[in-house]
C-alpha cells in the first residue's frame, strides 16, 4: 500500500517535470503546444543513445539531455514557434500535431521503432528495505531530483528578476516591451528551459515510462491533463495535479487493471466539468 503510494508519488513528480514546461507555454504564453512530448522524447533518446552507444555515465547524461533539448527548443522557438503565438488556437493545434507526426516518424526512421532500454548504474538499482515498505532506489532518486527542480523553479519564478520579467511579459507583452523588456528573448529563454525540463523528464522517465517513437502521442493526453486540471496560473497547481494523476494511475492500474486508463479520463472530464479553469486555477479567462 505504502509502496504503491510511493511509486505513485514518483510517477507524479516525473509527470510534473515533464509537463511543467507545457504549463508555462500554455498557461503563460497561451500557446497550445501538443508537441511538448516530442521534446521529452528527444531528451530520452539523447540519454539512451549516449549511454548505450557512447558509454557515457547516467548522471552525466542528464544535464546533457537537458542542454540538448533546451537548445532544440530554442532553435525551434526562434524559427517555427514564434510566428504561431498570435495565431488562433486551431492553427496552433494543427501546427503542433504536425510536429508530433514528424517527430514520431523521424525517430522511427533514424533509431527504429523498438522499445529502448536504459541500464541504470548499480547504486540506483534495487530497493531500500525500510520497515517492510519497499522503496525503489531509482524512484527515490526521481523524487529527490524532481523536488529540487520544483523548488528551484518556484524560486526562480517568484523571487528572481527573470521571474518577474517573465510574469510582466506574460501579463501584457506590449507594455512590457514598452518598458524596455526584450519580450522575445524572455519567451525564447522560457521556452528553452521548458523544453529542457521536458527533455530531462524524458531522460529520467525512460526507465519508468518506457521509450519508443510513439512516446509523444502516448503521453500527450497525460501532460495535457496535468496542465488543464492543475490550472496554469501557478506552479503548485500542476504539481498537485501531477501527483494526483500519478497516484490515481498507479493505484488504478494495480487495483482495477481491467479498467485501465478509463478512470483517469473520467475523473479528468468530471473535474473539468466542475471547474473548467482547473482545480487550482483562478477564474481569469485569458
Amino acid at each position, binding site marked *: 500500500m505504502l509502496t504503491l503510494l510511493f511509486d505513485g508519488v514518483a510517477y507524479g513528480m516525473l509527470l510534473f517535470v515533464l509537463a511543467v514546461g507545457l504549463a508555462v507555454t500554455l498557461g503563460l504564453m497561451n500557446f497550445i503546444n501538443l508537441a511538448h512530448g516530442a521534446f521529452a522524447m528527444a531528451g530520452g533518446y539523447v540519454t539512451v543513445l549516449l549511454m548505450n552507444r557512447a558509454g557515457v555515465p547516467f548522471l552525466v547524461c542528464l544535464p546533457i539531455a537537458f542542454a540538448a533539448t533546451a537548445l532544440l527548443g530554442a532553435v525551434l522557438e526562434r524559427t517555427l514557434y514564434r510566428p504561431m503565438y498570435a495565431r488562433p488556437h486551431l492553427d496552433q493545434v494543427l501546427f503542433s500535431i504536425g510536429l508530433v*507526426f514528424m517527430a514520431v516518424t523521424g525517430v522511427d526512421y533514424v533509431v527504429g521503432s523498438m522499445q529502448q532500454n536504459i541500464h541504470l548504474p548499480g547504486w540506483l538499482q534495487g530497493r531500500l528495505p525500510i520497515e517492510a515498505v519497499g522503496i525503489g532506489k531509482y524512484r527515490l532518486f526521481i523524487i529527490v531530483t524532481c523536488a529540487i527542480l520544483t523548488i528551484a523553479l518556484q524560486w526562480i519564478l517568484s523571487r528572481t528578476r527573470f521571474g518577474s520579467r517573465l510574469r510582466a511579459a506574460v501579463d501584457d507583452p506590449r507594455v512590457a516591451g514598452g518598458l524596455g523588456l526584450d519580450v522575445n528573448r524572455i519567451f525564447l529563454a522560457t521556452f528553452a528551459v521548458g523544453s529542457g525540463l521536458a527533455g530531462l523528464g524524458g531522460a529520467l522517465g525512460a526507465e519508468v515510462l518506457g521509450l519508443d517513437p510513439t512516446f509523444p502521442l502516448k503521453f500527450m493526453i497525460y501532460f495535457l491533463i496535468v496542465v488543464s486540471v492543475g490550472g496554469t496560473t501557478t506552479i503548485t497547481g500542476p504539481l498537485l495535479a501531477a501527483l494526483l494523476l500519478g497516484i490515481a494511475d498507479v493505484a488504478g492500474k494495480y487495483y482495477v487493471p481491467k479498467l485501465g*486508463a478509463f478512470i483517469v*479520463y473520467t475523473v479528468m472530464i468530471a473535474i473539468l466539468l466542475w471547474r473548467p479553469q482547473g482545480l487550482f486555477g483562478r477564474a481569469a479567462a485569458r
Partner: protein
Amino acid sequence: MSATPDAVAAPPAQRNGARSPAARSLAGYARWRWWELALFAALPLSWLLLPAQSLLLNEIAIVALFAVSLDLILGYAGIVSLGQAAFFGFGAYTAALFAKDVLPDPLTGLAVAVAASALLGLATSVLILRGSDLTRLMVTLGVASILYELANKLDWLTGGADGLQGVVMGPLTIPGTALAGFAFDLSGRTAYAYSLVVLAIVLVLARRLVHSPFGVSLQALRDNRLRAASIGVSTSLRLVAVYTIAAAIAGAAGALLAQTTGFASLDVFDFHRSAEVLLVLVIGGTGYLYGGIFGAIVFKLLHDLIAAWTPQYWNFWLGLFLVVLVLVGRDRFVRPWTWFGRRSATR
C-alpha cells in the same frame, strides 16, 4: 468560396421592396450558386465515369462526410474539437454490432447508428459548453479516449484489439421501390453509390441548416459569443443542437465505413482519425460546407501517392504538410496567387 460571411455584410443589389434588407441579404446568401450545382452534378458523374476507382472514391466520400460533420461545429460554431472520432467510431461500432447481432439490413443499421451517435452527442454536448479552447480540446479528446478504452476492454462485445470480425452485410434494399438486392461486393460499386447518396442527402440538409436563421445565429456566436448572447441568442441551446447534429453525421460516416468494409476496429476511435479529419477540413477550407469534399479528395490522393512511395513514413510527410500549411497560413493556402504578395492581409 463566395459564400463567406462577408456576403451578409454586402448584400447583392436586389430590388425586392416587400422584404426587409436583412431578409433579402439572407436570401441572397442562401441562393444556390453555379459551382454548387456543378459539384452536385459531379457526384453521380464520378460514379459513372470512374468505375474502377470505386473503392478509393468510397473512402473519399466517407472522409468527406466526416469532415462535413466537423465543419458544422468548427467552421460554423467555432468549437475546436480533437475528439470527433468518438462519434465516428461509435457509429461504426453500432452499425457493425447491429448488423452482426440484430439485423443485417444496411439502411436500418445506418438509422440506428445515426440515432445512437446523436444520443451520444447530446449526452456529451454539456461538456463543451464551459471553459476555454483548451478545456474543450481536453474534454473532446478525453471522450474519444474513453470510448477507445471501452472498445478495447469490452472484448466480449467488440472483439477488443482484434476488431469486430465476421460482420456480414445484407444487400441494399430500399423498401417500396424497385431498388432491391444490391449486394456489397468487392468492386465497391454498390458501396460507393450508397455512400454518395448519403453524402448528397446530408449535404443538402446541412446546406439548408446553415442558411437557416439557426445557422446564421451559429455564425454570430462563433464570431462573438458574448455579443450573440446579449442580443438574445441562446448560445448554449444552439451549441447543444449543432453538436448533436454533427455527432449524428459523424456517426453516419462511421456507419458507412463499417457497413461498406464489413469491419470495425479500434482504429476508428484513434487519435489520428480526429487529427486527420481536422487536416482534411483545413485543406479544403472551413466554414463553407464543401471544404470537406475538396479536402478529402486532395488528402486521399496525396495519401495514395505518398504511401505508394514510402508506406511506413507517410505520417512524416503529413506532419510536414501540416506545419507548412499553418506557417503559410490556412486562408492563403487555398489561394496560391497570394503566396508571394504582401503578408499584411493575414495579420
